[in-house]
């Protein structure tokens, strides 16, 4: 294979309000024809900057300080801008993270593809249109003729990303840069887009630079992988070796912080401290301050490349052959450590804390002259579930399935249309005034977005104390103050934090504050709405550890709303899977995750990319994938009968007739599918 793209010693700078930032400090990589090269890293590591630097599309206050980007042996950094434009789109194509905003909203899909063809003089006029239609077909868009004249907003997220791929590939570039191409997509859609990218690459023999934060996606897609940290590559290697041998302490921690079934009961590894600010020169290793194995040399001298073979290398002094004794000793000490006992015994069954029956939340659709109600968006349409004392129920589903609405409905933050919610044996729906307040003090909420969930104009102490004052917890201000200090300690923050404002904290710390705020009310149940989905994996690990500890010490129950299967496998005692406003399958984690019975659960679990191949589930067949590729129906107009039949590989005529009744596979395991027989 020949080197198509070679990046040498690339240094990028950005002028920011706080001075000149160095997001890239000496990046070297090569990309061969037909190869997928993945750059993986946490936010702020510089992975997207690498892509933008190669394309020379840096944000305006940024510039490339020095380095080379050789495309077919020619340095494209020295090209004048107008010649660079011949490279963009024609020789290097790029797709972006957010398909919803990356396409121009006022141009049709067809126009956006034709534009590329005409710009690079591939086809013109009607021929260009024909070619564009062909491309839509190739990226798997059904009815491409019609889609040509549609606008991006008329397409689903997955379809938009397919159009984006068509735009990027229309001029048949040698190199495709995919910057987080599936991060904004649901897992079943992600599987399809990744497959599409894989097959297009094979078909055209192009080189692909895949940029992602998701190690599992990398494990599935890449031939070679580079791990970035604080503006440089710290580890590079062929995929299998990359995951088999961490080499670098950062990689070691990162792999260990991924939640999954295998780690149930043990705490996840977490990395102390923060990514250092990238304002200037580093004297030593960039990871030294956060590294458990760092010694003097790490702080004095930047490590060189070392590794078992020339293909698989990492920047770490411990790999230096001269330091072999040190590594050996470290390894011995690691072996001596007694692993923390796996502790995942569910607490003794203390009975149901929360019992939800047939919960419904319908939002009216108003139309016409007098805003008459013409329909209902059935966001939550008859959800039943129960949460036991001290246990965690994971509510799993893809975006738009109604899981967040269901969580808010429990606390009556959205108007509930129907059903019953019994909390500790008492009906709580319809409570008003003081009683509603009392109920709310026992059920609390932690939100997804750590930046939107704290009032930026209040000090942390005020934020935590506000709920206590409202619920009348704590005899006086002094008592509440003491409690705030105690809570901050409980979530692992310094007591002085109470005088600071939220913006002074990182995402993970803000989530801790949000948890402290929820705990302030002494709740028995906390609804956690995707509390870690906005966080990097190493920070996610800290939050998950914290939640588990709190459950152990306080005996609080969690309703954990998430789309992340890894988190569910790691944390949940019970699982409920939601599709289009209804629970399709529920049971203990063991039952649902290891022996899924509903076709949707099976597809969902199979679609999750995994680091290792330990999964007990068979991979998705192409036939199943084809069925799944159908658009997710709208909750305003769900399909008749079983909601999943439009995408179900097993669907038969009878599925359209009526919504399937609940089938009890075991005492706890319940499925709504007519194909499932009770055992």
């Amino acid at each position, binding site marked *: 294979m020949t080197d198509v793209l070679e990046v040498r010693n690339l240094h990028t700078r950005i002028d920011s309000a706080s001075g000149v930032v160095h997001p890239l400090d000496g990046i070297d990589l090569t990309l061969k024809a037909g190869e997928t090269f993945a750059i993986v890293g946490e936010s702020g590591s510089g992975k997207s900057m690498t892509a933008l630097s190669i394309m020379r599309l840096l944000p305006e206050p940024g510039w490339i300080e020095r380095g080379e980007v050789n495309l077919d042996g020619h340095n494209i950094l020295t090209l004048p801008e107008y010649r660079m434009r011949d490279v963009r789109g024609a020789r290097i194509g790029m797709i972006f993270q957010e398909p919803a905003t990356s396409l121009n909203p006022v*141009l049709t899909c067809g126009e956006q593809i034709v534009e590329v063809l005409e710009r690079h003089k591939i086809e013109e006029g009607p021929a260009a249109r024909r070619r564009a239609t062909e491309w839509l077909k190739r990226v798997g868009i059904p009815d491409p003729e019609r889609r040509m004249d549609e606008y991006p907003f008329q397409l689903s997220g997955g379809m938009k990303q397919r159009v984006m791929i068509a735009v990027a590939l229309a001029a048949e570039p040698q190199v495709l840069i995919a910057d987080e191409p599936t991060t904004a997509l649901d897992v079943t859609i992600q599987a399809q887009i990744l497959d599409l990218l894989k097959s297009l690459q094979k078909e055209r023999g192009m080189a692909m630079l895949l940029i992602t934060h998701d190690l599992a996606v990398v494990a599935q897609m890449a031939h070679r992988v580079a791990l970035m940290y604080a503006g440089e590559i710290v580890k590079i290697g062929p995929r299998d070796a990359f995951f088999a041998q961490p080499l670098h302490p950062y990689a070691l921690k990162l792999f260990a912080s991924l939640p999954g079934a295998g780690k149930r009961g043990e705490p996840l590894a977490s990395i102390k401290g923060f990514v250092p600010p990238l304002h200037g020169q580093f004297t030593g290793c960039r990871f030294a301050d956060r590294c458990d194995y760092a010694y003097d040399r790490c702080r004095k001298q930047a490590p060189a490349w070392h590794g078992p073979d020339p293909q698989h290398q990492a920047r770490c002094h411990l790999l230096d052959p001269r330091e072999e004794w040190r590594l050996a000793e470290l390894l011995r000490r690691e072996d001596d450590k007694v692993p923390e006992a796996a502790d995942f015994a569910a607490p003794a069954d203390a009975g149901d804390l929360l019992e939800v029956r047939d919960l419904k939340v319908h939002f009216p659709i108003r139309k016409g002259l007098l805003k008459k109600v013409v329909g209902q968006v059935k966001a939550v349409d008859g959800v039943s579930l129960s949460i036991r004392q001290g246990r965690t129920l994971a509510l799993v589903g893809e975006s738009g399935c109604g899981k967040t609405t269901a969580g808010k409905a429990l606390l009556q933050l959205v108007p509930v249309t129907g059903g019953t919610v019994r909390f500790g044996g008492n009906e709580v729906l319809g409570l008003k005034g003081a009683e509603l307040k009392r109920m709310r003090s026992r059920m609390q909420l932690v939100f997804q977005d750590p930046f939107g969930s704290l009032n930026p104009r209040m000090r942390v102490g005020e934020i935590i104390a506000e709920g206590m004052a409202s619920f009348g917890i704590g005899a006086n201000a002094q008592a509440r103050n003491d409690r705030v200090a105690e809570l901050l300690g409980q979530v692992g923050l310094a007591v002085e934090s109470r005088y600071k404002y939220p913006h002074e904290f990182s995402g993970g710390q803000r989530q801790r504050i949000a948890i402290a705020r929820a705990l302030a009310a002494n709740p028995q149940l906390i609804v956690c709405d995707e509390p870690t989905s906005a966080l990097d994996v190493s920070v996610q690990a800290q939050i998950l550890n914290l939640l588990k500890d709190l459950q152990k010490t306080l005996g609080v129950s969690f309703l954990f709303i998430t789309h992340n299967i890894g988190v569910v496998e790691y944390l949940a005692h019970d699982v409920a899977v939601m599709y289009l406003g209804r629970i399709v399958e529920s049971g203990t984690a063991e039952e649902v995750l290891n022996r899924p019975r509903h076709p949707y659960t099976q597809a969902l679990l199979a679609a999750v990319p995994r680091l290792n191949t330990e999964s007990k589930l068979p991979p998705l067949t192409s036939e199943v994938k084809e069925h799944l590729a159908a658009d997710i129906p709208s909750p305003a107009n769900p399909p008749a009968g079983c909601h999943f039949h439009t995408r179900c590989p097993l669907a038969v005529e009878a599925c359209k007739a009526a919504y399937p009744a609940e089938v009890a596979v075991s005492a706890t395991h319940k499925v709504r599918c007519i194909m499932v027989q009770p055992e």
Partner: protein
Amino acid sequence: MSAYIVRRLGYGLLVLIGVNLFTFWLFFKVNTPDDIARIQLGGKRVTADAIAKWKAERGYDKPLLFNSAAAGIEKVTDTIYFEKSASMFALRFGQSDDGRDIWYEIRTRAGPSLALQIPNFIIGLAVTVSFALLLALFRGSRFDFTSQILLVVMMSVSGLFYIIGGQYLFSKAWRLVPISGYDTLFDSFRFVILPVVIGVISGFAGSTRLYRTIFIEEVGRDYVRTARAKGLSELTVMFRHVLKNGMIPILTGVVVVIPTLFMGSLLFESFFGIPGLGSYTIEAIQSQDFGIVRSMVFIGTVLLVLGLIATDISYTFVDPRVRLE
């Protein structure tokens, strides 16, 4: 779509009724016709007879809202509100203090107003949008920076100075165009050119700054990065992608004023002696002719409401998201 427009029209009518009642309250309740008559006739020593005569001449001698003396439907219709305020919905505006029919005046004066306002509007929009696009294209450069300073300075000068300065330079010092006056529609060119030029200049800074902000906000969006990644030139990016999206917010501000162009411009018409609705209004204000002021408030409101509806409709032309949903 049509239901949407009908609903907007209905709301517009509701607004009009509200405004009509409000102006009635303002003109007849805050100050009674007696108060106005006393001022018009000159101060404190006016006799009650004179006031009564003044009121009778103008039809102000009726009850305000309910005429208990009248019979049948006239209990409601034979009132000041019905005669003077509600009647405006039927375009009956009555007479001005000098005895002329207000509606006739409005119709004849709309022409000169438009002769000034339409070129002013079109040229102004074209000039400001192009210049703002230019600034967005060269954003961050020295040109952009100095232009911005210049724009702030221009914005800080009262429009009156532009008019006076322009009149002095072009008409008095250089004698290029007549200082003021008006002719029939097609000969009016030489009279209209100066106010149009000054009008464009005096409105230039504010709009350009606003549009520049809008364009620059668009430039920062993801689809612009996509367009660049396709290899499109910066000019194509600007005209094909940024302009098209930027026009959506610009239209909101622009379409709404189109119907109000009929109203003319108070300042320009009175300075340049153009017999349009603007100078009609200003004369009415200065001579305290409440009949005309009331009529102009009503017509202005009708036109603005139409403008708001036109804005809603215009969205459907430029934004496919509105059109197709």
